[in-house]
């Protein structure tokens, strides 16, 4: 009773500028099934979907290898329009709706039905009169199908997020001949009850014979609703499983996977960590960072410790560092060596010997139009009045002192440049990161917060940066907070790793805890909730 596949992507490979992001990946979807597609950030889920939709980003970077078959027929999809004609639709994570349009208008936009008039006969179809009745009937049908009882003439603006999501779904299923729908993290922005409702609707759509590709990182939802799951890791196909034959723990394990050994060579550890010497304490800490909101964190970080904050993108780990440095509004209590920070005051953390290396290197991290020297000395000059000499009543930059210091840093961190006057905008990613680190070190911090220290830099530079962080910790007893999306990195360096989900600490793990533990924590599940 082998059913024909609605979608079969075979041996798909894709390179971006020599960097292989997908390697011989296959994806097979049967009609009327919900097929979960899982993997960490960067596992290749989005690239695979971009290929399916023929997105311009794929074709402008050299296309891809492999074949795509829709209902058994090989197809070439060179733009999203063609994908639509083949009956493939997408429900986006961020809603593509026009706020000032009504539900009907949003559902039918671009595919309006028109009635010919004299003008349109002579001047072209775009001057046809809209057939509102048939359009709202269509919209109604689509809304009923997913069990939505909102009015089709209501405006989108001001609707709850859950409703917007449903309108978006209605638009997709209203398309003629829709056979396959892709849901990209549909529950990420929904409340619990809305999410349950959505899963219900997905089931209902699937029962009508429309296949669904369900991209998510929530394991429990996958278990609840899917028929099959395909797991990707680092651009490789790891496993295809029938849901009824697998378990949450197994999927979590497969997602994280046993990766290469530790990234850095260990050096001698003479530290003694004590619960009495607390370097940084967060109490009920919240940060309003758009897209990375922190919603209440309590943690005590011991002096001399390396602590990692991990978790998927958008869950809030990035917000922690930015909040402490005062870049975004925050609430709660932050204590640095027992002293409470005034969160209203800009630069308060800097004055309490906390230095920060931003994840946004080309934004908050560097003055791209200025020299390495200016970048390295900037914070220390502003906060500690270093590198200045007095001329009368004004403090003026002491060029020789600052130059000597920059030269020292260039040698210490091995920054490859033409000299201390080179503009940072013309440096490579790895060297830019070293300049950021040099500025932080110039502050002589007691606590160093580093966000995404190795993002976008090559392997050699990666190792160097990480080893330097480890040395700083071991030799100078600097307490280090690493915020990173790369678990390997955290597991190589940290004493403890706090996994952040939905703005809160999910679990605090040891680096040698099992892969399944990490996988479960990152998908937002607590260990004790899972029955083995």
């Amino acid at each position: 009773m082998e059913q024909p596949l609605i979608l079969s992507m075979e041996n798909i490979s894709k390179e971006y500028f020599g960097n292989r992001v997908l390697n011989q990946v296959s994806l097979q979807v049967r009609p009327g099934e919900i097929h979960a597609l899982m993997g960490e950030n960067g596992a290749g889920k989005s690239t695979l979907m971009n290929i399916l939709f023929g997105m311009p980003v794929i074709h402008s970077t050299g296309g891809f290898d492999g074949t795509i078959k829709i209902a058994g027929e090989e197809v070439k999809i060179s733009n999203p329009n063609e994908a639509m004609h083949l009956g493939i639709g997408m429900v986006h994570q961020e809603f593509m709706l026009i706020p000032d349009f009504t539900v009907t208008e949003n559902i039918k936009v671009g595919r309006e039905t028109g009635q010919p008039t004299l003008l349109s006969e002579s001047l072209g179809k775009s001057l046809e009169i809209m057939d509102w009745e048939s359009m709202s009937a269509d919209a109604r049908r689509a809304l009923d199908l997913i069990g939505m009882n909102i009015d089709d003439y209501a405006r989108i603006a001001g609707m709850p997020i859950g409703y917007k999501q449903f309108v978006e779904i209605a638009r997709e299923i209203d398309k003629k001949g829709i056979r396959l729908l892709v849901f990209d993290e549909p529950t990420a922005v929904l409340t619990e009850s809305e999410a349950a409702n959505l899963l219900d609707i997905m089931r209902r759509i699937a029962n009508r014979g429309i296949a669904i590709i369900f991209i998510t990182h929530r394991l429990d939802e996958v278990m609840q609703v899917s028929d099959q799951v395909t797991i990707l890791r680092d651009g490789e196909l790891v496993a295809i499983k029938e849901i009824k034959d697998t378990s949450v723990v197994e999927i979590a394990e497969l997602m994280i996977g046993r990766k290469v050994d530790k990234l850095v060579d260990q050096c001698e550890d003479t530290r003694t960590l004590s619960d009495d010497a607390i370097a940084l304490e967060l109490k009920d800490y919240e940060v309003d960072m758009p897209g990375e909101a922190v919603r209440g964190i309590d943690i005590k970080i011991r002096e001399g410790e390396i602590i990692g904050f991990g978790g998927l993108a958008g869950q809030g780990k990035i917000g922690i560092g930015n909040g402490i440095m005062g870049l975004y509004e925050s609430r709660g209590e932050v204590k640095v060596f027992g002293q409470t920070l005034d969160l209203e005051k800009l630069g308060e953390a800097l004055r309490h010997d906390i230095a920060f290396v931003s994840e946004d290197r080309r934004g908050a991290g560097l003055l791209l139009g200025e020299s390495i020297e200016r970048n390295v000395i900037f914070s220390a000059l502003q906060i500690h009045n270093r590198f200045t000499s007095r001329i009368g009543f004004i403090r003026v930059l002491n060029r020789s002192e600052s130059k000597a210091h920059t030269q020292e840093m260039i040698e210490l961190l091995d920054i490859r440049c033409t000299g201390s006057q080179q503009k940072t905008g013309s440096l490579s990613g790895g060297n830019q990161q070293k300049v950021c680190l040099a500025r932080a070190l110039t502050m002589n911090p007691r606590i160093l917060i580093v966000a995404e220290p190795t993002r976008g830099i090559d392997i050699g530079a990666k190792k160097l940066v990480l080893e330097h962080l480890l040395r700083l910790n071991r030799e100078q007893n600097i307490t280090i907070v690493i915020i990173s999306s790369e678990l390997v990195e955290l597991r190589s360096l940290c004493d403890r790793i706090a996994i952040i989900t939905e703005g809160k600490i999910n679990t605090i793990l040891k680096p040698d805890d099992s892969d399944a533990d990490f996988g479960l924590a990152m998908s937002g599940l607590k260990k004790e909730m899972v029955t083995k």
Partner: protein
Amino acid sequence: MSKTKHFIDQIGLPRLIIGLFFIILIIASVPLGLPMDAVFSDILRRWLMYSILVLAMVPGIQCGISLNFGVSLGIVCGLLGATTAVELSSQNEGVGPWAALGIALVIGVVLAAVLGVLYGLLLNRVKGSEMTVSTYVGFSIIALSNIIWLTLPFKSGELIWPLQGIGLRNVINLEGSFGGLLSDPTVTSTQPFPLNYLAFDIGGLTIPIGLILVFALCSFFVWIFFQSKAGVAMSAAGENELFTKAAGISVDRMRILGTAVSTILGAVGIIIYAQTFGFLQLYNAPLMMSFQAVASILIGGASTMRAKISHVAIGALLFQGIMSTALPVVNKLMPNSMLPEVVRIIVSNGIILYALSKTRGGHQHEK
């Protein structure tokens, strides 16, 4: 081929074209029989007398408010200082020309500092459209100043309309107060040593040492300011707000500081301009002055984001050089007509338009 391209990239196409135009004008004035010493004296004088107004653009651009079209605010402050100084010197025997110049500067600077801070507060509320708003501020302050000129209770006969007894004149002669102290040999020669060396003639060429000194002093002040802690922070605020915030610096405060310094330089600039010119021009005369300053710094090679003092010197020379040579040349070619005046307006506004349309010239590397 690539070498010439590199050369053009280095200098910037707008600067190259305008520079060539300037040189052509100078060469053309020789066969036309213009007195070259007078031409060069004029270029030198106009270059220096405008340059402080152009210098006022630098702190504005660096602190992130971009081109300060509202420098007219500083100009009005300077004019208020200057008119007060003239009033005082004509009413009191004890106030000599140097004291008058000092009074004008002090009043102008203090007023400009206060209004500059308020203006900075305003610009912080309209982030993203500073250029538009500053243009309107510039125009409005001129309108407001027109009312002030009409109602100031000054008594000096040099200032007020002769027949009405109230309201200031359009043009006020500075001969009796501080006119020409720094630049006019006929004035400086009456001064005691060493002040008599502030301007002198060599052959037919006038060297305004006093003006050169004042411009150098102001440039040095701006330069040292940008070497200071506040100056470094201000440059960073203009380049990258997030970075500056991450270093614990209030971007808004830095923008206010930059705006205030720019306004103060505007006030100093107009006083130095007036003393060189020999007249104070009130009412709508300063209306378009900010545009000339903006055009000058752009031709000099600045972008709307970054400016240096060298851009000021080069830009002021090119702009004022063309203005002071184009007129006599056109005059010779088409005597006894309205045309020279028309050409003057076309040339001056043409340069402004050209400079504004090429704001990125010479800075292609910046993104």
